[in-house]
């Protein structure tokens, strides 16, 4: 029954990644077979990357609303009210597939794309963060990918002049063939100067600004929606090349145009370039659009309409202007030496009509294509809670030796080698950068500050997706609280394997359920996000990695806390219940060689309550230093606090109490204080467990038995692993 246009074949349809059913639906929508250009447009609009067809059903279950939310998911980025007429605008997005193929450019353009998502809405970007996952340490590509990704993130962000202030990096063999590069950007705008993407005003001009269109990145969205195999290297030409200098010009030019009132709608050209930007704008505005592709600024001669519509050349934006504002707008873009072209008009036809050299080369109805894109209820199987595993610690294990091993292990060692390659202090508003709980950036010219963090513990998510999803949100919440900020909202980046496999779909469903429950309970609505599926190579999937990007607000940045002990004789108090949960911990992995059992339980009521109490103690200036307890447990957290300023601690903990030292029970914070009576009273009143564990003292870490290890020895282990790994001579072994 299926028929083909004269310039396509069954083979070409297949290459475009459309299933038989999807192709039939395309014919039904058009009332005829699509030509090659139209087929290309269907292909990218219905790709997993653009349509969220596998995840849409589940994404709808996430809480996205709250009095603080100005704009939830569905726009370029989420918008949250931070008072005084200011708004924070933020989003996280993946660039996983391109970064594996070409790490420098893949990561760089990931940063560029997320910056555009944020400034498109009227914000000046003020901070970059990231969440990175790489394969096994001994995998042949790991160092190459890590060094390329880090250089690419730095190369782009440093040039644009937006500080990169935080992030996380993990290693696991599950990422050997599919690294994860998730980039987050945070910007600040005025609430009365926020720009949206819905087109409007029949006859209004559609304007193209930024870089010229080249042949790069064609089918990037389709590539990001397929599994990898040995042939993936051949896809290198579909990776785009970034130009941060042009991005910087584009930010300044757009913000200058936005300071006036010429703009009706604005949208960046990200995945699927001109196609998805024009489609989304018209679809959201309920309009049609007519584009004359002969007017598109091209980098090369002889580009076809197909190439122009599918190009993913970077640093481009599409703007709908009010009538008669073309000359004013053009002047601004010429000042910044950027291309400017009127490429079309808004129509009332509800169709996208594409013209080239006087002829109509494509004609598609907008709503059926953009809104009626497939939505699947893919089959899934629930991942059960693993059986409880009793872990026995051999008598040969010495607590402080284990601590040194762990703190210098790839899981916990310092990431300084990475973050020193990022300009973290440009814009001169960075109050706290990588190395603490959350990064903190001041809202320029005010006393307010925003705290931000990226978090996910993939080993928990793999063991039990629902617990892992909730834990990622809980850890984000704790990191914000520990810096002195009230958690506001979050963005998420859901990275998974092939959703057509029921067990992978089960991971997605479980993680989303956990995230939804935690966001609801902790009042952190999800305001933006991104889904990256098909992270599989030769049938092997990544660990489920739902990264949470959390943002919190400090009304007065002078209350900010850091993790560093800044003097001796401070009391150290653990708030929250310690139950000695060692399964799935870093101690179990690094010291006992066990990666089995249950992740620590997440009690959201306790998280919320403990966080609320800690925040009020910080706001009342009873806390000198604060750190959440996560990977590695209590003694790792104390060590990080001690190493930050070279002041040690004497702990009254028994050397053999491995559960207390290294357990990863959730909802816990360490507070260093001169006012322990007030803290203990507050804990008692709130019915939260509080445990005095010792005092800050000297330049070593000492346990109840008197066993001791110097901070210099711990710091050396902590700081040397990554430079040693990255800068060791290249091995010639196969």
């Amino acid at each position: 029954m299926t028929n083909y246009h004269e310039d396509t074949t069954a083979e070409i349809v297949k290459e475009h990644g459309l299933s038989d059913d999807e192709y039939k639906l395309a014919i039904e929508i058009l009332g005829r077979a699509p030509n090659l250009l139209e087929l290309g447009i269907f292909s990218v609009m219905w790709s997993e990357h653009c349509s969220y067809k596998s995840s849409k059903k589940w994404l709808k279950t996430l809480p996205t609303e709250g009095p603080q939310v100005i704009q939830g998911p569905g726009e370029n980025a989420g918008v949250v009210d931070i008072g005084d007429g200011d708004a924070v605008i933020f989003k996280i997005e993946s660039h996983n597939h391109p970064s594996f193929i070409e790490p420098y450019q893949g990561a760089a353009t990931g940063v560029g794309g997320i910056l555009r998502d944020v400034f498109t809405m009227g914000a000046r970007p003020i901070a970059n963060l990231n969440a990175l996952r790489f394969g096994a340490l001994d995998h042949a590509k790991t160092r190459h990918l890590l060094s390329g990704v880090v250089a690419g993130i730095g190369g782009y962000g440093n040039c644009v002049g937006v500080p990169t202030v935080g992030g996380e990096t993990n290693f696991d063999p599950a990422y050997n063939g599919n690294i994860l590069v998730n980039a987050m950007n945070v910007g600040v705008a005025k609430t009365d100067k926020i720009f949206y993407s819905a087109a409007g005003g029949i006859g209004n001009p559609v304007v193209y600004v930024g870089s010229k269109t080249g042949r790069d990145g064609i089918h990037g969205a389709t590539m990001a929606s397929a599994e990898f195999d040995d042939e993936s290297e051949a896809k290198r030409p579909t990776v785009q090349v970034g130009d941060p200098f042009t991005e910087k010009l584009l930010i300044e030019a757009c913000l200058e145009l936005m300071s006036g009132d010429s703009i009706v709608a604005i949208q960046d050209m990200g995945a699927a370039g001109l196609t998805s930007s024009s489609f989304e704008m018209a679809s959201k505005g309920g309009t049609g659009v007519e584009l004359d592709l002969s007017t598109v600024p091209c980098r090369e001669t002889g580009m076809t309409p197909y190439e122009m519509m599918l190009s993913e050349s970077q640093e481009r934006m599409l703007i709908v202007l009010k009538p008669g504002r073309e000359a004013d707008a053009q002047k601004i873009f010429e000042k910044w030496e950027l291309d400017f072209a009127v490429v079309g008009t808004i129509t009332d036809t509800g169709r996208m009509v594409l013209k080239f050299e006087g002829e109509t080369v494509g004609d598609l109805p907008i709503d059926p294509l953009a809104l009626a894109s497939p939505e699947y209820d893919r089959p899934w199987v629930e991942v059960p809670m693993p059986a409880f595993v009793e872990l026995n610690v051999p008598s040969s294990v010495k607590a402080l030796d284990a601590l040194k091993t762990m703190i210098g292990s790839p899981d916990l060692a310092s990431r300084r080698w990475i973050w020193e390659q990022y300009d973290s202090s440009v814009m001169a508003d960075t109050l706290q950068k990588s190395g603490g709980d959350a990064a903190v950036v001041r809202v320029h010219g005010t006393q307010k500050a925003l705290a931000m963090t990226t978090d996910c513990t993939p080993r928990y998510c793999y063991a039990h997706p629902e617990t892992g999803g909730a834990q990622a949100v809980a850890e984000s919440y704790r990191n914000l609280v520990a810096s002195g900020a009230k958690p506001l909202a979050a963005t998420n980046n859901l990275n998974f394997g092939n959703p057509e496999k029921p067990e992978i779909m089960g991971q997605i469903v479980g993680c989303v359920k956990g995230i939804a429950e935690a966001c609801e309970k902790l009042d952190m609505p999800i305001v933006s996000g991104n889904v990256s599926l098909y992270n599989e190579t030769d049938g092997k999937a990544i660990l489920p990695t739902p990264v949470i990007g959390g943002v919190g607000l400090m009304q007065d940045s002078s209350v900010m806390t850091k993790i560093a002990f800044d003097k001796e004789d401070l009391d150290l108090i653990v708030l929250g219940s310690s139950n000695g949960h060692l399964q799935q911990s870093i101690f179990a992995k690094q010291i006992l060689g066990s990666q089995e059992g249950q992740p620590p339980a997440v009690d959201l009521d306790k998280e919320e309550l403990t966080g609320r109490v800690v925040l009020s103690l910080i706001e009342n200036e009873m806390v000198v230093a604060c750190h959440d307890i996560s990977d590695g447990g209590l003694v790792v957290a104390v060590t990080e606090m001690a190493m930050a300023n070279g002041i040690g601690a004497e702990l009254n903990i028994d050397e053999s109490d491995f559960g207390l030292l290294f357990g990863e029970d959730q909802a816990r914070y360490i507070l260093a204080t001169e006012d322990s009576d007030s803290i203990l009273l507050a804990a008692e009143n709130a019915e939260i467990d509080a445990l005095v564990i010792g005092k800050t003292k000297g330049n070593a870490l000492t346990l109840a038995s008197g066993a001791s290890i110097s901070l210099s020895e711990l710091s050396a282990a902590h700081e040397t692993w990554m430079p040693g790994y990255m800068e060791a001579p290249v091995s010639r072994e196969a």
Partner: protein
Amino acid sequence: MKSAVIVFPGSNCDRDMQVALREVAGKEPHMVWHGDSQMPEVDVIAIPGGFSYGDYLRCGAMAANSPIMREVVAKANQGTAVLGVCNGFQVLTECGLLPGALMRNASLKFVCREVNLTVEDNTTAFTFNYSKNKPIRVSVAHGDGNFFAEQATLEKIEGEGQVAFRYCNAQGELVDTANPNGSMNAIAGIFNEKRNVLGMMPHPERHADPATGGNDGRLLFESLMGALS
């Protein structure tokens, strides 16, 4: 003190410099666009950090040939104080106001960290609020800050006492581990012969507020304020 900040399209520390100058001088600096060929009458001209024209070629090489730099050179030669930070230092060496060149960091990587600097000469308009025996703490953030000069030039710079700052440890000692980029003689900043032009890789403007990293950078602007007002 009247000041001007040169703004190239890829400058990204122009606002930071503007804020530091405004806070110290109590007057709004002139922000001078790279395409302008008129320089307002000012006491000090600052060339901020960033990537002037993208710097895909040699850093600062294109900026050195921009219309506004002809004005900056003319003013410098008439004795106006000129401060170039990071990319600004690169531009000053490219346009010949300062000797030497800034090469790729020895590590081949961008480096952003706080460093300690010795103050080599505290008798200039830029540095007289500093003490010679107390290191200052400021940030570097660059990929190309490795100061190089041919032997004769280096000898002249050292012989004439033109070195402004050197990378050191917290005790003020010149040790290799304190040098973030491989600069010759640990040079972090230099003066011209007349001491009215200073180029430096570290960013004093990022350390002009205790909340964001201390006041050691602010002292440089306060020195200028004292000398030029």
